[in-house]
């Protein structure tokens, strides 16, 4: 059951320019959260719309999210000091199915955050491919190395790891035949390319989508996305039916 309450910020650290990791002492949410789910954070009195942010890590009562300053709301959140309070609703949405077998995690930019939570649930099992614009934007690589069997880092400019995008090494990895599932989160172009490769190799693939949200609980219908159910197109809600979808359901 999701809860809406006031929680204390227990830790905060910058990960990259404009990107922050923030931890809340939020037992009710931390204990219920599943990888791929998100929390909806109120960012100041004058802003009625909460900001949806994926859960990145859970330890006991502590809930960690990673976010980028994109506007006034996230700037407000980034300015909150440790010890201050935040109004959080969550955990929300449908997370990853956490399938058995070898997982291939494909993350782009901030999209790597929820994948770390998925990887840490079954340590030593997953392979992660993490794509960033350049070295200075690369985040959470050490954390992934701590919980994954293999980690491949890719940057657009080749300043860290391989040069290319998160999908560049995928075809070769999939040819090994050892992966039974792909979990992906990142820019839409990366997700659709991942879905296509997964389909070509017959591997089950889940993607986490992003859309501007309102209520976060499935009622207001603003975060609509087109999906296909048994051959029929319909409108789904990213906040409630997702944010994680079977990649075959998404109308790319």
């Amino acid at each position, binding site marked *: 059951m999701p809860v809406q309450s006031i929680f204390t910020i227990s830790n905060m650290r910058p990960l990259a320019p404009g990107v922050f990791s923030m931890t809340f002492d939020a037992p009710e949410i931390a204990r219920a959260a599943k990888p791929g789910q998100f929390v909806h954070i109120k960012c100041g009195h004058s802003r*009625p719309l909460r900001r949806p942010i994926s859960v990145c890590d859970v330890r006991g009562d502590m809930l960690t999210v990673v976010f980028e300053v994109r506007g006034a709301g996230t700037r407000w959140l980034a300015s909150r000091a440790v010890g201050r309070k935040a109004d959080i609703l969550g955990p929300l949405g449908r997370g990853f199915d956490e399938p058995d077998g070898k997982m291939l995690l494909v993350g782009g930019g901030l999209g790597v955050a929820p994948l770390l939570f998925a990887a840490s649930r079954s340590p030593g099992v997953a392979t992660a491919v993490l794509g960033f614009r350049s070295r200075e934007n690369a985040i959470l690589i050490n954390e992934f190395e701590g919980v994954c069997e293999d980690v491949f880092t890719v940057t657009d400019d080749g300043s860290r790891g391989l040069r290319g995008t998160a999908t560049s090494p995928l075809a070769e990895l999939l040819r090994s035949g050892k992966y039974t599932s792909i979990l992906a989160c990142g820019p839409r172009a990366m997700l659709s390319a991942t879905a296509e490769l997964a389909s070509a190799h017959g591997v089950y693939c889940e993607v986490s989508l992003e859309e501007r949200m309102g209520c976060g*609980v*499935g009622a207001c219908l*603003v975060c*609509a996305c087109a999906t296909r159910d048994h051959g029929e197109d319909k409108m789904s809600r990213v906040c409630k039916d997702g944010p994680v979808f079977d990649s075959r359901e998404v109308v790319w």
Partner: protein
Amino acid sequence: MADMKVLFAGVEFKNPVLTASGTFGFGREYAEYFDLSELGGICVKGLTAKPRNGNPAPRIAETPMGMLNAVGLQNPGVDAFIRTELPFLRAFGTRIVANISGESVEEYAEMAEKLSGSGVDIIEVNVSCPNVRAGGMQFGTDPAAVSEVTRAVKKRSDVPVLVKLSPNVTDIAEIARAAEGAGADAVSLINTLLGMRIDVNTRRPVLANNTGGLSGAAILPIAVRMVWQVKNAVKIPILGMGGIFSGEDAAEMLLAGASLVAVGTASLTYPNAAISVRDGLADYLNTHKIGSVTELSGGIILN
């Protein structure tokens, strides 16, 4: 404890706080957060004759103390509502207000006929949606069209008819009088105000639909003023809405002349907003030693 019951257009409400159409779906999602039977009533998501997919995303943009939306009446259609949503809602023993939008006068009337006898308590005629090309606000900004739609719906409806007014007009009192003259049992106001936001980096509107409806705390003073103007123009009761976040906001709307209030955008911020408003209103009544909420309606003392 103050008496919260209200008799409105012949229908008894256990308390004066409803949820506004389009902000509460068909109640299923919020049933996870509180007991829906605690509500005075639920105005369901706007229904159309046929299912609609709505507008492309993004459908929402934040504004200072408010938001713009352009959902575009995404809904499963009136038949699916009656078949699959209404039985669920009926089980809670709260009043159900069916909100309808037509592309023609005949479509409004046909929907009203289908909903009559279905178990809804009131039909709310939406002539004020700013986010659809056909129907919606095109009717609500013309007194003659409001009158025609109201008359057609009244003729085919066996439950009270509430007409939801648009604030995007020069004189909302004139529109309210047209609804009353055509037989409306009550009016609800206000729907959203037409607005727009532009991303200055891309020079493009934030909403895919370019424009959308403004709601939230920012519009409360406009809603209060319009409720007061309409109260002075008609004798039928008013369901007041627009930016209500607290019990005191609700009291303000009632003092301006509303008999019931609806909570909309606040539910997007706080899932249990309507319950907080109800409890806050009860506290206000008790603090001010007001025996019944009905004593508050129209109780404004002008300067």
